[in-house]
């Protein structure tokens, strides 16, 4: 399988803390790849660099073979990489379905000229966006609350809505940050089902940080284990769960580098 995200010997230093230490890993196209590790392992820092939140201190990051090291999040979005869930963000005064319709970039109606002189084109596109949004709202199982203000949705429903916004944007690879945090079991099953469907039917690649090991086991293959800033092992969860080194990393704790 071709590689979509290729992290090559990436390091990140904050003051005297080496949070990520010559870390190399790759995410293959079409997979749901999990990233786990004890607290302080450097997962979130690595994720932040892949998502363009800040550049690495050294090393390179490739997206689909192109060097994207140091590119900003919005530039990566333009190249089909999208991160979600660090906080479920929404336009709380708009309805669920309107939130979905906000997503696609470059709508014809967004220029004043078009709005005045190309009403036909604008309306045709608007209709297409609405059709797609109606489709998506069913996939994310929020049809029953589509006219509800997004601000009134539960935390789990907001995450579903966020996944819907991902679908509207049609990226190629999605970084999912803590899908299970603060979500009840029923909604979590819905979220997992939507992720699996997007992966299977739309060929979306997912790179997932998650603390819920059972969700990781259900969703991800392969799973990459980070400890002390670099990759400890990679494989299917069943194998990882029984690996003595991994068990010890979790159980014995992973002392962070000297804190300031």
């Amino acid at each position, binding site marked *: 399988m071709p590689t979509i995200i290729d992290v090559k010997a990436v390091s990140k230093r904050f003051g005297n803390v080496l949070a990520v230490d010559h870390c190399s890993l790759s995410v293959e196209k079409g997979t749901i790849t999990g990233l786990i590790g004890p*607290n*302080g392992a450097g997962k979130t820092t690595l994720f932040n660099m892949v998502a363009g939140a800040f550049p690495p201190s050294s090393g390179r990051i490739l997206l689909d073979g192109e060097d994207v090291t140091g590119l900003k999040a919005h530039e990566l979005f333009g190249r089909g990489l999208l991160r979600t869930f660090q906080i479920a963000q929404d336009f709380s005064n708009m309805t669920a379905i309107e939130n979905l319709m906000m997503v696609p970039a470059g709508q014809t109606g967004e220029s004043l000229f078009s709005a005045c002189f190309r009403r036909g084109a604008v309306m045709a596109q608007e209709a297409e966006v609405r059709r797609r949004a109606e489709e998506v709202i069913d996939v994310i199982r929020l049809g029953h609350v589509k006219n509800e203000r997004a601000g009134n949705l539960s*935390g789990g429903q907001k995450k579903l809505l966020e996944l819907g916004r991902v679908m509207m944007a049609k990226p190629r690879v999605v970084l999912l940050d803590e899908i299970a945090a603060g979500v009840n*079991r029923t909604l979590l099953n819905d979220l997992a089902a939507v992720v699996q469907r997007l992966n299977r039917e739309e060929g979306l690649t997912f790179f997932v940080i998650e*603390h819920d*090991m059972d969700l990781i086991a259900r969703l991800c293959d392969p799973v990459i284990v980070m400890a002390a800033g670099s990759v400890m092992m990679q494989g299917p969860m069943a194998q990882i769960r*029984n690996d003595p080194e*991994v068990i010890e990393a979790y159980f*014995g704790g992973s*002392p962070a580098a000297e804190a300031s």
Partner: protein
Amino acid sequence: MPLLEMTNIHGGYGGANILNGVSIAIEADQIGVIVGPNGAGKSTTLKALFGLLKVGEGSVVFDGRPVTNMAPEKLVLEGLSYVPQEFNVFPTMSVEENLEMGAYVRRDSFRHLIDQVYGFFPPLKDKRRQPAGELSGGQRQMVAIGRALMTEPRLLLLDEPTAGLSPRYMGEIFDRIVAINKAGVGILMVEQNARQALALAHRGFVLAGGKNRFTGTGADLLADPEVAKSFLGGGADHA
């Protein structure tokens, strides 16, 4: 009679429960350690005990008195003291001012208690005029624990006292916790560094999914290979 007995605690924030039946019991003068994977409900258990989270079901008894859902300031008078994981010092105040803040409930002289804290944590004495925010992570943790000791608690609650510390400071903090316990203060702490913490525990509680998964002496839990494995999920009733 146990000093602390939490029985079948249920509770959470708003909608879904985080705690689904946690039971913790420790005797006076014991060290109890709560460990488990992320999201197991460890810190939430301490918060429920210290009145920072509403207990929906279950009971908390401290020294024979029911204290379920009692307010934190009342629990301090009952003999409990709590050190949160973060934001646990006043960064612009000096070390000694931080300790004085801890003594806010006292009407009598507390100089001897400050000296006692300096006895437990000698590095603080040298830095007593320095703002707590300028200290290293390990020393800030010492200030936070020292501040909690100023009310002369019978049970000290510590939420991840070694989080983010270097191995050297981790060992030092653990040594100090043992010394405080030997001086007659019961300890109940949540820890991320499970192996090291269980090694000092009289009683260990491994939580998963908001309830007890394993309970026993620290030594028993360390000897059971299933305990370490449980940190990676896959338990029977944790699906």
